[in-house]
Structures are given as C-alpha cells and as structure tokens.
C-alpha cells in the first residue's frame, strides 16, 4: 500500500477532512475502507472526528493550524543551514500541527528540520530507535522518547541539563528526576500523562453520594450500590473499568494499586526489589476481588480503549484511564456528555497509603551520534518551551510539563479540567522503575504485568507466593544490571 504515492496523500486528505469535521461517520468508514485502512486507525479517526465536532479549536477550522504558536525569544540564529532529522508524533491528526510548529522554528532559526513520523506502537518505535542507535548511525538527531526509556537511552543520549536550564521554567520535578540517568538529563519533559479516576457525577448524585471516592473501600461501596440500582434497567451495567490485560498498561495500574496502599514501588532507586510486602499483596488481592464483582470479567483483557468503550457507552460508574479520555467523553455525540468528572485515584488503607498516579508522557532527546547536536538541542529547547507547550495544550490537548502553563487562561479555556489535574501531576505521580532498571526495565515490567495478570485472573493461586515468585524473578533479571 505504501508504495503508491497517492495513498498516503489520500489518507492525509481524509485525516484533514475528519479533523475539520467535514465528514460524516459513514463517509469516513466508507472512504477509509476503500483505502484499506486498519480498523484501529479508523477508530482513532472516528475519535478525532468526535473531538473535532465538540468544538475544541480544530486545526484547519476557523483558525489555521498552529495559530496559537508563539515563537519563544532567544533562539539561536547562528546555526543557519544546519540539518536536523526529528522523529516526532506518529501518523495522525497531530502531524499537521507538528509540521506547522517546525515550520515556524525553521523560519526563526534557519535550521532545516526533516520530520519523520514515529511508529504508532511504542514498542515498534523503541525497536526502530535502538536499531539506528546500536549501529551508532547519525540518521536521527532528535526524537521523542517514552517516559520509561531514559534508562534504555542513556548510552545513546546527550546530556540536556543545559537546555533545561536555558528554558528557565518550572518543570515538574518528578519527571526531571525520572529523566535523569547516570548523572545526565536524558530527555527534556515535553508532555505528560498520569492515571486518573473518571466518575459519573449523575449516578453519584442519584445514589446519594456527595463526593467521589477517596479510598478504594469507598469506591467499592459506591460501585456496588450504583450497580445494584442500575442493573434493573441495564443488566450489563458495571462499576469500575480499568486496564487488566498483560501489557505495559497493567504495570501502570498495578503500580498505582501497590503505591496507593502504602506498598511502595516494584524496585527502589537503587534497583533493590521491593514488591514483596504485605501491603502490596493486599492491594493485588483487592484488585483480584474486583473482577466479576464491581468490574466485568473481561477487564483482565482490557487495554485503555476497551475500558473507554465501556465507559463512554455509559455502562460503567468509574474508570481508571489517562486524561485523553476526557475530551473524547465530552464529544458532542458522547452518551456521557456533561455527566462525568475526573479526580485523583483513590488510596488504600494502612501505613503510608496515599493517592497515586502512574507517570506517563513523552520527552525530547538528542542523539549522541548526531552530527549537528547544537541545532538538535535548539529544536528541543524550542519544542519544550512554555510557549510551545501552551500551543500543544490548546490545539492538541496535550498535558504540559511546566506548572505555570496550567494557569494560563487560554489553556484553561480550551481544557477546563486541566486545573484539577495540576495537583495530581505535581504531587502524586509515581514513576515506573525504568530509570533504576536501565535497559532491563522491559524485562522487569513484563515479569510484573504477567504476574499481576495471573493473579487477577486466578491463574496464580495464592497471591502471596505469586508475589514471592515475582520478586525472585525480578531479582534474577536485575542480576545482569
């Protein structure tokens, strides 16, 4: 499909029409199918369509794409003519905006930026980066990296501490810490993500709950009461949906259960295994108890979009998900429009219990093998600047990594719920142990989510011994560190 030049153009054209809301759902499906697009891609496009229809500033609607971008002052102009290759967002509605942002950068600095779309799957993207970096090739100068990659990227990255300093902005400390490995700042925080709790305001009110749950016990009580009432009219109604499939997302959910119950983290900063403790075990047992009671049986195979499907279909009282589901839930044709709100995830019981939100998001990195590192650093400085973060928040609904941007009136006007999220990002975000585990993190995470999936599906038998096995397995993996 990719060999024929006209097809990607047709896809781009389709994307543009979708983003502008010029296309009905049926037309999109018909034309998408004619182009042989995958179901998941069309699903994404439908989501975009929904978001566009909602009235958030659409890229080429009333305003031109990139209208909110203000070029920050103080960019270097002495690097004119330098060539930089940047691996950015994957193919999708984010591309026109990114291209507009890069064009303004090129106009301001004279640096030539070649943009490449990264893979949609983060695993594929990582493999792509590592194939290039392991051969020490200079094909990539700058690229965006997942929040769990600083440890993996350490051998291939340039220290960006000076770029961060030049920004002179109030970046979230947790993320800066997370991105620091081997004494170097591997990536400048670009945009962030954190696990949050979605709840149905209408249902809470209907069943006499004045506030969303602050503890897991409360969530269980509220969910049970709401299910009992709603089942009468909708037998498939459920209480709480989350991500239980054996993949990276379960590592996030599991870490939140564990941390919020005072069970610490999987591995501490010195790469010592800390998962095998009573509070963590109790947290996992609690989650196991949700399956087939307040959560559907299928939740152990859910990823983000599966959970959102049930939630946005109005079939669940609560959902744990990332903030992206907010604007989608507020789309014009959404069944739960104006019927829900977000808050921090509940906490457990016992010593040290506190609300936790798993840290996600993307950072900007410069390759050690780049032949124009100065120009690449300048690009990173530009993209991560408060000015650009503001524009990304307004036009792309991405979450800034700088506190002050959350107080910006234009940002709040575009995304009213951001204000509520700021304390979650500033305080409770808990990072996966990717920095401590370095390039062994994928193995550790795989062991963790596999064990958790076996626990919650009842394949593991006794949780205590399953966690003990998990700890020794992680210990074994980290021996190679």
């Amino acid at each position, binding site marked *: 499909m990719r060999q024929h030049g006209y097809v990607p153009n047709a896809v781009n054209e389709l994307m543009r029409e979708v983003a502008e809301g010029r296309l009905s759902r049926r037309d999109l499906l018909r034309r998408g199918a004619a182009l042989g697009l995958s*179901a998941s891609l069309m699903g994404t496009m439908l989501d975009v369509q929904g978001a566009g229809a909602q009235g958030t500033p659409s890229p080429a609607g009333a305003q031109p794409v990139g209208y909110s971008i203000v070029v920050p002052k103080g960019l270097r102009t002495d690097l004119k003519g330098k060539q930089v290759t940047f691996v950015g967002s994957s193919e999708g509605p984010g591309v026109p905006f990114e291209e507009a942002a890069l064009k303004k950068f090129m106009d301001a600095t004279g640096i030539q930026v070649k943009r490449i779309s990264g893979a949609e799957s983060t*695993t594929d993207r*990582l*493999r792509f*980066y*590592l*194939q290039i*970096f*392991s051969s020490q090739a200079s094909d990539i100068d700058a690229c965006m990296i997942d929040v769990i990659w600083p440890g*993996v990227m350490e*051998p*291939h990255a340039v220290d960006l501490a000076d770029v961060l300093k030049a920004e002179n902005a109030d970046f979230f400390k947790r993320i800066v810490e997370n991105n620091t490995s081997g004494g170097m700042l591997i990536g400048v925080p670009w945009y962030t993500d954190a696990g949050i709790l979605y709840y149905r305001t209408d249902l809470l009110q209907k069943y006499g709950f004045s506030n969303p749950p602050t503890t897991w016990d409360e969530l269980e009580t509220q969910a049970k009461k709401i299910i009992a009432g709603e*089942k009468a009219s909708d*037998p*498939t109604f459920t209480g709480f949906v989350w991500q*239980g*499939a*054996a*993949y990276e997302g379960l590592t996030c959910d599991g870490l939140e259960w564990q941390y919020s119950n005072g069970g610490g983290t999987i591995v501490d900063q010195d790469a010592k295994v800390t998962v095998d403790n009573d509070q963590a075990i109790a947290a996992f047992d609690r989650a196991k108890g949700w399956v*087939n009671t307040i959560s*559907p*049986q*299928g*939740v*152990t*195979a859910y990823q983000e979009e599966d959970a959102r499907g*049930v939630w946005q*279909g109005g*079939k669940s009282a609560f959902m744990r998900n990332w903030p992206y589901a907010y604007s989608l839930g507020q789309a014009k044709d959404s069944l739960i429009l104006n019927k829900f709100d977000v808050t921090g995830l509940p906490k457990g019981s016992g010593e040290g219990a506190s609300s936790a939100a798993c840290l996600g998001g993307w950072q900007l990195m410069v390759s050690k093998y780049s032949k124009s590192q100065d120009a690449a650093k300048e690009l990173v400085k530009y993209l991560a600047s408060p000015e650009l973060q503001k524009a990304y928040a307004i036009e792309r609904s991405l979450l800034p990594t700088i506190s002050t941007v959350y107080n910006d009136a234009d940002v709040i006007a575009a995304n009213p719920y951001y204000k509520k999220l700021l304390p979650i990002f500033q305080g409770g975000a808990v990072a996966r142990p990717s920095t401590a585990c370095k*390039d062994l993190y*994928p*193995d550790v995470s*795989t062991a963790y989510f*596999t064990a958790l*999936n*076996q626990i919650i*599906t*009842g*394949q593991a038998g006794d949780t205590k011994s399953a966690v003990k*096995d998990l700890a020794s*397995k992680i210990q*074994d993996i980290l021996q*190679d560190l």
Partner: protein
Amino acid sequence: MALQPEAQPLVTSQAAVSATKSKGRWAGPDSAIGRQQERLGWMLVVPSVLIVLLVAVYPLIRTFYLSFTNERLGSVRPTRWVGWDNYTRLFDDSLFRHSMINTIEFTVISVAIETVLGMVVALVIHSEFKGRGMVRTAILVPWAVPTVVSALLWQWMFNDFFGVINSILIRLHLMSASHPKSWTADPSTALGAVVAVDVWKTIPFMALLLLAGLQVIPSDVYEAARVDGASKWYQFWTITLPLVRPALLVALIFRTLDAFRIFDLIYVMMKYSPATMSIAVYTQQQIGNQRIGFGSAPAVIIFLCVGFLAFIYTRLIKVEEV
C-alpha cells in the same frame, strides 16, 4: 495387507537397486559424458544451494549461536558467551513452561478436531450431489480470510458486551445478561476460544488435502465391496481410511508443524495473555524486549520440536511407502 510380511518388499527393492547399479546400464561417473553431466548438474544446483545456505542455514546457525550469548539490542553491555545459561533460565521461567504446555495443548486439540471434522467435510464434498462445485468453493472461504482478519472478527464475536455469541446465549436464556462471560479473558475458556477459531479457519485446508486423497481411490474397490455386501461404515474403515492414509499423513505434517509454531492468531486475539501464550508469542515478547540472545533460546526450542515432529512424520510416511 496387514498379513504380508513387511520385510519382504524391502529386500526386493534393495536388490533391485544394486542389480541396476552393477549392470552399469547408465553412463557411470567415469565416462566423459557422465562427468560432463555431473558438472552440469552441479552448476544447476549451486545457485539454489547458495540461496538455501544464505536464507535458511545461516540464520539458523546464527540463532543457535545467539542463544548462547547475552546479546541485547542497543545495549552497551558487552556481548559475551554465556553457555547454557539462557536455557537454564528459560526452563526456570514458569511463563515459558506454561507457554510450552499451552502450545502442546493447542497443537494436540486443534489438530485432532481439524482432522476429524476435515475428514467429515471431505467425505461430504466428495460425494455426488447437486451444487457440489459451489459448496467446494464456499467451504474454502474461512481459509481464504487472512488470519489477522479472522482473529479480529472472532474477537468481536467473543466480546462479552457486544459479541454475537453472548447475545445468542442470552436470548436463549443460557447465560444471565448481568454476568456476561468473557470468553477470551477467562483463563478456563481462553485457549478453547483460540482453538475454536483455528478449527474454523483450518478445516477447509484439511478437507481439501483429504479430498485429494479420496479422489485417487478407484471407485471399483467400493463397487466390489458393495457387491460383497459391506456396509458403508465397514467400507470407510477398511477401504477409505487405509487408502487415504498417505494424504492424511501429509495433511497432519502441515497442520502439526503449523500449529506448533502458532503466533499470529494468538498474538492478535490475546496479545501476551499468559493463559494462551504460545512459545512463538513468548519468543516474540522476549525479542521485543531487546533480549536477542535470550529470545533466541525459545526459538531454538521451537525449531528442535518442529524438526523432531517432522522427522517422526517422515518416518511414518517412509514406512507407508515401503
């Protein structure tokens, strides 16, 4: 047939071969023409031998080699020889042992069902009836659907909330609407769900191979049996089954080896769910985690198992030929 002494034909055929050789009826390698022909033969064979060496033997040897190292993609850790370490770790890993059991269960159950049902379908489309050509074509449809598509299709059908299977069960009052079953998430039914899709998809293939076997059985054998008053059932056991055996074995080789290497269907339908993980999915997960060295070890295990199965089957066929 079973009463014939088995050693007899073996001796005769060997004797026949040596007899031909000693008489030297064909131009031996010593003659000029013989040498020329041998050279030509080599010249014709060399390109394909080179290609096989390049695309099959080299990657294979490389995989064996890598499985004894700790190579990781994009790591600064020096790659070194770790001996059998990857293999001891592999068999220590409960997930690998589990994926091995899954693979064996999947192979045995799916191939058994496919063989029986494939035979039934083959017998049906072999018999004379109106519109047979159309039925033969129609029956191929599941096989023609790409695996990824059929996996996604079935995933929707198995969906707990929106799936057609649960919808039917609920309407028939066989399932309570308030507790819909998640066929793919429940570990007790997950592997069964995968087997069901594989069976649906592969019966046409099995039936087609067996049909080819059925078509070479001469019809006069059946006529003779009918004259002698043998029942249909008796005919099947004493005529059809023994005569279709070579075709059956070929079909079994294909299916068993394919089933043992199962990846796409499980990966698309179940991702990395430990309840259904096969060795191939396990391998892909490890390689995906940049563990090139460790991930090569399960790949070698698959190769050895498949090689062993192929060996057994070819032996069975050889016995058959003799």
